[in-house]
């Protein structure tokens, strides 16, 4: 290990996770975990169904992924259905392996809260709730964290307008018709 340069060490750790941990994970949770091809950062990633998230996270913690790095919400509207994704990054410390869990969910789905396992999930999930309106089941204190308590709507949704009359913001979601979206524009076609 000592003669490898740090970049190779990181790549080796990520490959080890992809070759050993991910197949075990797929085997341990058949039908609930689905592998996704690697992206540019080479971090192994899997889709997890909302019901299985808590057990998968505990399973990973037992395998040495002791650090929950971040909880992020992503809104894929209008490209995908269900539109939301909650993304968890886990890290093995002091080893270098990382894995990304992605939980697809719709507005109605409830994602189990990880705040009983990692205390930091508490504020992180509150932020995802605040910005996207995703409900976390079993969260001890699911309140808004960045926006004021009387704020209407969830601003990081893709169909939430960045400017415009307040009345338009109050329309029922998902309101993809007639919404005021001044900055969302299509790319020009090639040659025009």
């Amino acid at each position: 290990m000592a003669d490898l340069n740090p970049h190779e060490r990181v790549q080796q750790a990520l490959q080890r996770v992809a070759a050993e941990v991910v197949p075990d994970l797929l085997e341990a949770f058949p039908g609930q975990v689905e592998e996704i091809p690697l992206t540019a950062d080479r971090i192994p990633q899997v889709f997890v169904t909302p019901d299985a998230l808590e057990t998968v996270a505990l399973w990973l913690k037992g395998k040495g992924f002791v650090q929950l790095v971040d909880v992020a919400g992503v809104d894929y509207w209008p490209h995908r259905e269900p539109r939301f994704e909650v993304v968890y990054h886990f890290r093995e410390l002091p080893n270098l392996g990382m894995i990304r869990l992605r939980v697809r969910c719709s507005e109605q789905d409830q994602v189990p809260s990880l705040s009983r396992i990692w205390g930091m999930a508490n504020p992180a999930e509150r932020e995802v709730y605040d910005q996207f309106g995703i409900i976390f089941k079993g969260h001890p204190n699911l309140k808004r964290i960045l926006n004021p308590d009387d704020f209407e709507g969830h601003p990081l949704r893709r169909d939430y307008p960045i400017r415009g009359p307040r009345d338009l913001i109050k329309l029922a979601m998902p309101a993809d018709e007639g919404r005021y979206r001044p900055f969302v524009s299509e790319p020009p076609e090639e040659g025009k």
Partner: protein
Amino acid sequence: MALKEQQQEKKDHMILSVGPHHPATHGVLRVVLELDGETIVSAQPETGFLHTGIEKQAEQLTWQQAITVIDRMDYVSSFTNNCGYVLAVEKALGITDRIPPRATVARVILMELQRIASHLIFLGTGIFDLGGMAAIFWAFSLRDRILDIFEAVGGVRFHTSYIRIGGLAKDLPENFKEMVEEFLKLAPGRIEELRDISLENPIFKSRTKGIAKMTYEQALALGQTGHMIRTTGSDYDVRKYYPYCGYENYDFKVPVYQDGDLWSRFAIRFEEIFESLKIIRQALDNLPDGPWLIDDRKLVLPPKAEVKESMEALIHHFKLVQYGFDVPAGEVYQCIESPKGELGFYVVSDGRNKPMRVRVRPPCFYSIYSLSEILKGHMVSDLVAVIAGCDPIFGEVDR
């Protein structure tokens, strides 16, 4: 009304609301304390008073333009913000290996200078909060020398937006080396002076030793990174674990403390500054000449002189200004060691000229929410010092 009800429930306990406009909270933080006499029974931080929707704004701008709002997040260390975002986008574009060496080394020098500037703010205001009046003036006067360098480099002192996708906005100024050399001569003595008046001072020691202790397990559960986890015995530093910008080529140590208390959070900063000075020394000696921007007309603007003569250059200029460039669809996570800890960027592209989502993993956000754990059992008078020890910057906590 809510406060009254809570007070009636727990008759012996007093509820004290600190902030949001308290100068010692380093910005706009509200902490709701439940007190038994002078002892803190529970503390509930409340954030969001400086929420500016930076993640939302970044979605409305092209990839290159978004740098300007990412800048304003951690407003005392804009170079590290820029670089983290830029590295994430470069990874998504697959051009990480093609960045010219001059740009990479310049990024390292600037980021380390920024780290020193940010640490000086932490030390100055932190020691000031504990009654050390001189520290804030000493620290800020030295930090001003760094900002002078930034002004010469990027034109402004604070939000430079100097690091761009593909390299740097423009070449380093001619006298850059001399300016940094001058700073390297000046800094060690000034920082030792600052250390001597604070760390071994009996009042400072009695107010920080053994306060707000955190164990390694606690730090992991609470998502701590940076100085918060390195004072609990872990050597987790992104520069060593996941090197970027060629940090693996520099010879530097990661200082580690075992106590996990407030005193070591201050002490580790001094050592980190000296390590940063070592890195700047090495990087400055190896600063290569050559281009500072990637040679790819689809990504960076052509030189102005060429635009006036060449048709292709004019078309590229027009296209980049009007539309920007597309980034292949996909997700990328890139972390860097900001002065406060692990600053992560989870960037999602849908294949267009604007980011679909820029999620920032803010280190200060998690250290502020660790207050509810580490403040328990301490006195009200410790509150101000413990908040300072977290090194919060509310532009980043609230984004």
